[in-house]
């Protein structure tokens, strides 16, 4: 069978596959699966080959969730917002002479935001580990803040907002950062 007679995988399947893959793997994996598709279409027919391709698409779905979140702007925007909130909280704590522990909390939130932004951008292993480890601190801080709000008489809306955003940020970090590949691959 020559090149012109070859049946390629359906365009929508290849397009979906590319959406599920990180940028550095899009061409190579799509090419590998196309090659395998040609062989299967030739030996078993187009139908079974398409079903095989579809099954492979599903197998990339878990990774695709991480890629979609990593490629998107949700996590960077969240980090930017919580980072700005932490700056504001820290400045207010200093101005109002609050205990050093509260300034430390603001510093921890700011650090986590910066480390996660750097991990998303630079993809260095050490930054990715730090970002993932920092999520535990953010969960603890958010949980403590929410528990305090539930117990206390004063309802502070901005604390509730920041605590909830930190939980979402940490969940997205855990879903995204471990799945990111290294920054560069030897070409």
């Amino acid at each position, binding site marked *: 069978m020559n090149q012109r007679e070859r049946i390629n995988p359906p365009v929508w399947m290849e397009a979906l596959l590319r959406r599920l893959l990180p940028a550095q793997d899009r061409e*190579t994996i799509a*090419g*590998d699966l196309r090659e395998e598709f040609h062989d299967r279409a030739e030996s078993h027919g187009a139908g079974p080959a398409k079903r095989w391709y579809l099954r492979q698409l*599903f*197998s990339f779905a878990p*990774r695709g969730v991480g890629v979609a979140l990593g490629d998107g702007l949700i996590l960077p925007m969240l980090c930017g917002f919580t980072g700005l909130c932490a700056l504001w909280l820290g400045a207010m704590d200093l101005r109002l002479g609050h205990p050093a522990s509260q300034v430390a909390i603001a510093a921890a939130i700011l650090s986590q935001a910066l480390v996660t932004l750097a991990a998303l951008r630079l993809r260095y292993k050490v930054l990715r580990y730090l970002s993932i480890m920092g999520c535990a601190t953010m969960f603890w801080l958010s949980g403590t803040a929410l528990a305090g709000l539930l117990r206390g008489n004063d309802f502070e809306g901005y604390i509730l907002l920041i605590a909830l955003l930190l939980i979402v940020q940490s969940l997205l970090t855990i879903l995204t950062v471990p799945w990111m590949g290294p920054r560069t691959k*030897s*070409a």
Partner: protein
Amino acid sequence: MADLLGTFEQIVLLAVLGLEREAYGRAVLREVQESSPKGRTISAGAVYATLDRLEGKGLLSSQLERGTPERGGLPRRFYSLTAVGVSALNDTRGALEKAWRGKRWPLEAMA
């Protein structure tokens, strides 16, 4: 000694080792499929995720090469074992052999 490798990691690394200079994604996928128990289908997603993870750990390195016409010119990524990868395989094999020493194989079900 580094962390011991999981079974699937060993299978993928050994596939890369066996394929020598031909260890690109699809060839590794086929090799892994062939070395798996009969009837068990190995998904491409699992193989590529493992390749990516092993490369991230420094056990594999990769190199891009230009694609051939049958794959529409799309590039191929060829994998090779690093010294760390070879050492990890040796350590894992050594640890397993040590653990199996003195045991009869195949094991018999305990009454």
